[in-house]
């Protein structure tokens, strides 16, 4: 993967064009000031028509990774022809503060070996101030155009840093290592981190500090804002001598908006090597527990009264900033007629914003074997304080314990060896870190599509409502509009009466009345005032056809004749009259309905 560099190639926010003469090799370092253990870039820049790979010589005092992590090749056209600029960057660091001579580096350009100029690289101690640039120019060949600090390179977008709070310590003395990841915050730059590696810390015991609630901080470097993400590790050297905290790496990607296009690039910043000088501890007293740092001892005995054979708990708490795993069990003096056994040891982190603090708790079961008052004498815990450079003893206790005599029936032995297997199995089953499976189940069936039911449930209420609303509307109209009600109900009334005509004492007269009443309802007229001649005129006005009109009049006149001539009507004639009247009512109903619409 090609990597781009500030000094050499595409700038993130612009393009820097080189001003080197043809067939020339330049070597310089980045950054300008290099300190002991700091990883820096040794950059070789060669220019010509045909440029081969640089031949990197062995340089005394420098550890160089000969595989370049920056590889950039650019071609451009000039009046003299095509120009090739080859740029290679090598990671390097120095273990000692000294002045190193960078010998000429050979690159074959256009078939001829070209060499860079020799220069002196001064490696500074980590805490020494940077000398004035004018007096000790460490990288004389560096192009002047790259010295500005207002532009960013890809390497500036994501920075990995390592810091320790001290570089000279005693064995087991805690060192706080801060691993900082700095991500640039810029509207045109988007940085993503997808992998981080832990630094190799051979010779150290390492614990991570729980950061608690995470609040990323921000910082400003060269006028650019960075978001800082910090991981804290506490390192406890386990051997004396010169120990190294190797660099840690961070892998990510950046996307930079350049006008309308985006430029993506992978980022791989690396932190500096840190060197730690570890001193051995002075000769230790007998009560030394192994703890190095600053500690406090607390103890308690609960309860202070017990019965013969019933254990009480003695708790010793050691709290401090040293390695909790190096703290040995405090020496408990032997007490007659009492058995003491360590039942539990726990280590936990104690919230402390100023420094990482741990607590190690030792719990002992103290079982009195005889009744009476028992005195548990004081016990000593000694640790080494690196600030005072001496061993500090701490004492706790004594405790008195009142032991009551036990009843005979209460005197029993506890045998831990029996039934252990079944108990262990039970513990395994109950001790799952997840809840157990559910064995009972109900309503287990395959799911079927309820789409039809859903649509039915949506449409049905609407349809039902429409029917109900229509019916209610009709009912209201029937109640509120008498002429409408007469018109609508006329047929039903007429047919009902015709059906029951035989029950009437004057069936022929009833047929006449039924027809007159039906027509009065349909034409919205008063029934009493209507005569046959009126009916004829009204039917004609209503557009009833001649045949139907004649049939109606014939039935009415026949009824009149029968009534006024007192002529008796045979049952067959009455049936024919009723059938004729029924047919007429039906036909008139359909006529009036069609004309009304």
């Amino acid at each position, binding site marked *: 993967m090609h990597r781009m560099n500030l000094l050499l190639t595409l700038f993130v926010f612009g393009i820097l064009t080189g001003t080197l003469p043809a067939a020339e090799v330049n070597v310089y370092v980045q950054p300008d000031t290099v300190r002991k253990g700091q990883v820096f870039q040794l950059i070789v820049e060669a220019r010509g028509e045909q440029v081969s790979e640089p031949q990197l010589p062995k340089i005394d005092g420098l550890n160089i990774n000969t595989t370049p992590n920056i590889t950039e090749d650019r071609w451009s056209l000039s009046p003299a022809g095509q120009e090739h600029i080859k740029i290679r960057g090598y990671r390097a660091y120095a273990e000692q503060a000294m002045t190193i001579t960078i010998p000429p580096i050979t690159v074959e350009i256009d078939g001829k070996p070209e060499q860079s100029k020799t220069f002196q690289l001064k490696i500074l101690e980590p805490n020494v101030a940077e000398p004035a640039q004018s007096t000790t120019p460490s990288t004389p060949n560096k192009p002047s155009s790259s010295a500005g600090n207002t532009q960013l390179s890809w390497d500036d977008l994501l920075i990995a840093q390592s810091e320790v709070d001290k570089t000279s310590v005693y064995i087991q003395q805690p060192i706080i290592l801060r691993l900082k990841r700095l991500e640039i915050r810029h509207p045109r730059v988007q940085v*993503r981190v*997808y992998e981080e590696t832990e630094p190799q810390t051979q010779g150290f015991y390492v614990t991570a500090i729980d950061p608690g609630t995470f609040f990323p901080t921000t910082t400003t470097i060269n006028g650019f804002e960075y978001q800082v993400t910090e991981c804290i590790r506490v390192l406890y050297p386990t051997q004396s001598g010169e120990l190294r905290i190797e660099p840690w790496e961070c892998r990510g990607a950046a996307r930079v908006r350049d006008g309308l296009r985006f430029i*993506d690039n992978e980022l791989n910043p690396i932190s500096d090597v840190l060197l730690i000088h570890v001193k051995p501890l002075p000769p230790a007293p007998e009560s030394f527990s192994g703890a190095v740092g600053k500690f406090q001892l607390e103890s308690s005995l609960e309860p202070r009264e017990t019965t013969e054979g019933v254990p009480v708990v003695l708790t010793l708490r050691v709290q401090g900033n040293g390695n909790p795993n190096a703290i040995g069990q405090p020496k408990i003096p032997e007490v007659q007629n009492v058995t003491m056994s360590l039942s539990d040891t726990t280590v936990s982190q104690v919230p402390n914003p100023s420094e990482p603090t741990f607590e190690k708790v030792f719990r002992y079961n103290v079982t009195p074997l005889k009744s009476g008052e028992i005195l548990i004498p004081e016990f000593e815990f000694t640790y080494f304080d690196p600030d005072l450079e001496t061993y500090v003893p701490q004492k706790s206790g004594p405790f008195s314990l009142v032991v009551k005599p036990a009843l005979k029936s209460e005197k029993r032995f506890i045998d831990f060896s029996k039934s252990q297997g079944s108990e262990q199995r039970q513990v395994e089953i109950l001790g799952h870190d*997840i*809840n157990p499976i559910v064995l009972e*189940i109900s309503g287990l069936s*395959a799911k079927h599509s309820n789409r039809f039911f*859903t649509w039915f449930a949506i449409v049905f*209420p609407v349809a039902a409502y429409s029917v*109900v609303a229509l019916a209610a509307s009709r009912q209201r109209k029937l109640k509120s509009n008498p002429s409408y009600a007469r018109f609508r109900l006329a047929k039903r009334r007429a047919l009902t009466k015709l059906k029951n005509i035989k029950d009437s004492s004057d069936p022929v007269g009833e047929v006449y009345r039924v027809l007159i009443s039906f027509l009065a309802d349909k034409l919205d007229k008063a029934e009493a005032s209507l005569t046959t001649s009126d009916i004829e005129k009204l039917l004609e006005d209503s557009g009833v056809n001649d045949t139907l009109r004649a049939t109606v009049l014939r039935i009415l006149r026949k009824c009149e004749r029968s009534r006024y001539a007192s002529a008796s009507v045979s049952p067959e004639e009455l049936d024919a009259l009723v059938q004729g009247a029924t047919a007429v009512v039906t036909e008139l109903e359909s006529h009036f309905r069609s004309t009304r619409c």
Partner: protein
Amino acid sequence: MLMTQLLWICVFTGIGSQAYVEEFNRANSFYMEGEYRRAADVYERLVVEGVEHPVVFYNLGNAYYKLRQLGYAIANYHRAIYLKPNFTMAKENLTTCITETRQKLALPEPQSWGKVFYFLHSSFSPKTVYYLALTIWLGLWAVLAYHSIRPSRMSIVLALFLAILSITSGISAWQKAHPPRLAVTCEPEVPVRYGPGDAETLRFNLYEGDRAIIEEQKDDWVRVATANGDRGWARRKDFLLVGPPYETRTKQETPHNKEGIDKQ
């Protein structure tokens, strides 16, 4: 094939339920004997046959947890909680699984407009929300019908109230039935890139058990969004869709192309 057909006949005749219970019990027996792979297979067959029961998904999640396949376990716990939101045991197991993932990513939040409805129905099962919406809908038309027979101001107010409630519950039911396309990473490490293609620049990595919303799909690639707002393209095969529809480990199985549950 014949067994499948018979099974489906059984389902429709009401005998199927018993067959499923027997299969469920068989899976439980495998689980109790520590044969988690076989237990997971039988539970999954039930899912493939169309059984959607929170307990089946929960037990399946447990089986996958025991197999240390955190992605599948998390997806199945999510399904159990989706079908039964007050399933405390599933929630606890899900939390346990999440704490064991590398990044411990939070669950992506619903879209802003959907949050209102999310809070309305998050504690109800899809079935409850569905029937509630239908009941309100029926109630609305019943009140309207009553109003057409006996009009009153009270019935108008009630109908208006039910109309608003009906719209709300309807959207809620639809949203509940069509949840965001939540997916769980089932591979140890899944590269997420700036675009759909292996040549695209790597943007970030997802790890087994990480949850993301699938926003878009192009061929074999999906655009995923995580809870912290990271977006990118990853291969579809590296994710298990929580559903519905419910994918299984082999993903291509459906009730129509696999053999019956009685066949091993």
